[in-house]
């Protein structure tokens, strides 16, 4: 990963900015809230991938390390499942 990647880094920053501006447009779109949420989360994940792969140089790491970094995802999904399961039993708050 050593070497001059200035153009790639600039291109990445431009894409991150474009996606951020696009997110601002999505919240103004006359579409259902659920569609907005899906679009916004997709854009956020894309931006996160751009930062991780290009700026954090994850694409130059070994497959093993890249897979290791995916370990928190099932843990987070398990937590999400836990709190969703608990929702019908929780009280309403302000």
């Amino acid at each position, binding site marked *: 990963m*050593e*070497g*001059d*990647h*200035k153009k790639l*880094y*600039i291109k*990445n*920053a431009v894409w*991150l*900015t474009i996606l*951020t*501006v696009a*997110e*601002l447009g*999505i*919240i103004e779109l006359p579409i259902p809230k659920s569609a*907005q*949420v899906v679009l*916004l*989360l997709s*854009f*956020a994940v894309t*931006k*996160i991938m751009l*930062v*991780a792969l*290009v*700026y*954090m140089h994850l694409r130059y*790491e*070994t497959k*093993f*390390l890249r897979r*290791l*970094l995916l*370990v*928190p995802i099932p*843990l*987070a999904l398990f*937590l*999400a499942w836990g*709190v*969703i399961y*608990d*929702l019908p039993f*929780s*009280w*309403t*708050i*302000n």
Partner: protein
Amino acid sequence: MNQTADTLTLQRDPFGTATTGKLGMWLFIIMDGLSFGGLLIGGAALRASAHAWPGPGEILNVPLTAFNTFLLICTSFTMVMALNSIQKGDQKGLVKFLTATMVGGLLFLGIQVWEYSHFITGSHELAASLEGAGFVGATSFLPNTSMYGSIFYVTTSFHGLHVLSGVIYIFVILLQAKKGAYTADNFDRVEILGLFWHFVDLIWIFVFTVIYLI
């Protein structure tokens, strides 16, 4: 001796050329990511139980925070350019880009503090926004104004603490860089600092989407 070296090579192979310090930072990032994941998932669950939940921009200043997001993206660029510079042996470039990253981080914090002070001191405009969002009678937006306020302050201040830590971390590395501690063959600490700073940016992308836009 050779056998030990071979065993070490075998053990390190799954991680390629990544140094121990770099692996340590990746491990920290995994754990810290889980902390943020817990906050955001907990926040989403509380949101599902809440009576009133303001839409994007009803209380929070979305354009200002979008600018802050842009600022953090710019600092990610300057941080990666700092590493790029020292990999080529350019110590002046390293100092220049680290300074730019630190200034960007301080600006981000300054804007966040301004946003907090605006919410804490309150105004007629803010009171009207709060009433429109369902928080009748509230004149300022505080952590105890509603569950929305609690989630906003806890998540953004936890992230802000990371930015502050990052700025201090950059300052320390910057002082070492000014003394010529880093060269084209010795830049591991700069790379590890970069991983932390990009993680701070990466988390903000998610916080901005979940707290401000959804």
